């Protein structure tokens, strides 16, 4: 399912936020902030770049996506549902007993999920492994991955970073969801990452920084990354934690795992529906 215009992509972002918020709101609690900050990049990826067949989610040679910040699973489930890989009605089972849609992405439970994540710092290494595998098999697959800025505190991220560059993995494109927040506070106060772009460049990566809520900017950055030869690419996304609903954005410093009341549930859906999709 490819979307051609940026206006249509923006609409799709609203729809994905709507589905995500509905699932979390129905349950009453969830990792809203980090799901919402990631939506625009996930939409650009899944509707413009990732080569996969929704009818055969395990097809050999497909592009892969590893959601290393696995707690953003709810946003990804909405996209998988929109592609028909899972049923939209299943989204309301999020985190319920015996669900196929747990908080954190799980490849053995959810069709369309390429790697199990949830213990931060591991997904990027998994993506590196997949990218090496694709190089060995020469199947031409690209591997995409998304990490968090808080997640970037983990030493394993930097072990993976060094190895990916060492292996010249130009089939690996990684996003950092730079929403400036982790659980305990602002990233700059807990463990600062700046100069974030220079860090990745000094580790041997191609790196650039774009507005993570601008679908055109993201799209063009992915196009540029695909053209890079000989090194992996990092796209730093400047984002807002909880982007998309005003009263969730307002508490960007405290929306990592939030309770959603029935009233908020209604209000949030109404706000997202107002602009249409």
């Amino acid at each position, binding site marked *: 399912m490819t979307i051609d215009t940026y206006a249509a992509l923006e609409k799709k972002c609203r729809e994905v936020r709507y589905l995500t918020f509905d699932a979390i709101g129905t349950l009453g609690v969830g990792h809203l902030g980090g799901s919402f900050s990631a939506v625009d990049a996930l939409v650009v990826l899944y509707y413009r770049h990732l080569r996969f067949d929704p009818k055969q989610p395990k097809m050999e040679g497909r592009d892969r996506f590893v959601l290393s910040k696995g707690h953003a699973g709810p946003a990804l489930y909405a996209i998988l549902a929109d592609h028909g890989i899972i049923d939209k009605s299943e989204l309301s089972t999020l985190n319920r007993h015996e*669900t196929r849609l747990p908080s954190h992405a799980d490849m053995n439970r959810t069709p369309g999920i390429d790697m199990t994540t949830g213990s931060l710092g591991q997904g990027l290494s998994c993506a590196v492994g997949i990218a090496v595998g694709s190089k060995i098999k020469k199947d031409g697959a690209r591997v995409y991955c998304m990490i968090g800025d*808080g997640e970037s505190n983990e030493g394993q991220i930097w072990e993976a970073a060094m190895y990916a560059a060492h292996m010249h993995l130009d089939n690996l494109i990684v996003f950092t969801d730079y929403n400036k927040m982790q659980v305990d506070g602002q990233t700059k106060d807990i*463990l600062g990452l700046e100069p974030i772009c220079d860090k990745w460049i000094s580790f041997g990566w191609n790196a650039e920084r774009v507005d993570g809520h601008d679908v055109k900017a993201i799209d063009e950055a992915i196009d540029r990354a695909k053209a890079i030869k000989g090194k992996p690419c990092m796209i730093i996304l400047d984002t807002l934690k909880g982007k998309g609903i005003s009263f969730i954005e307002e508490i960007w410093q405290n929306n990592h795992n939030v309770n959603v009341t029935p009233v908020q549930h209604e209000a949030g859906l109404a706000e997202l529906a107002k602009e249409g999709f």
Partner: protein
Amino acid sequence: MLLDLEMRQVYASELLRMMEIDESIIVIDADLARANGTLGIRDRFPDRALDVGVAEANMASIAAGLASYGFKPFISTFCPFATRRICDQITISIAYAKQNVKIVGTEPGVAAEFNGGTHMSIEDVGVVRSIPGIVIFEPVDQVQLLQAMPQIAAYDGPMYIRLFRKKPTHVFDEATYRFELFKADLLQEGTDVTLFATGIHVSIALEAAELLKEKGVSAEVVNVHTIKPIDKDTVIRSVQKTGCAVTCENHNIYGGLGSAVAEVLSEHHPVPIKYVGVDDSFLIVGKIPPLLEKFHMTKNDIVDKALESIEMKRK
């Protein structure tokens, strides 16, 4: 009052109180201070409350460095990241180097609820128990934890504390209970079977004992809060009287309390033992009660195992 508090609040407020009198106590978090109740400590003691970010391995070895420099670090994160994730840092920087670091893991086993399978530690006790020289303590309720905190701080050596974060079922009477680290608590005397329980399973075992009583079975209930080193005397003395046992825990039946009790009894006083816990499978997302049902860790499961254990004794 005390019982209105969550376990993390008891933990954090007691830590804060002790930090006022002991300048060597230092707390370190790994981006879960907000979740574990320790966030407020940095307001009072900005120099002695660190947050290293989402970097558990770094936290463990930094703590070892601080300990070697005369500090008493308390480090905390969720159970799986406090143990299996940093197994080698615990082993080498802390245990092998004999550094006085207190490792606090929160949300054991099914308590991780909505965080799901990746966050549900059923191996943490097994992992830590096989590392020499680390004490393992799992508090039951606020009363026990409050009394335990000064003893934990006073103990000079590495310790893993397996902490239920929220409000547990109340078990111990504030007025009469006297906690002693390393000493298992005999909660209820019985003659037919001993239920050895830890953590959230202590209250469940007590309920099971009530059900057994209705069936004419007299169950003894023992809280093994210090899983390592296990209180051998109390364990052996109890089964000398009852002749069989059931272990009850929110953990894999391999490597945890069940294994610890079996090791003691098989060597010193062999009797039938049955195990209530996770039967070697990964857990799934969900609320505690349905998870206990699904993974056969309820009071009814304890009753069934108790009857089986008694039956084996008769053969």
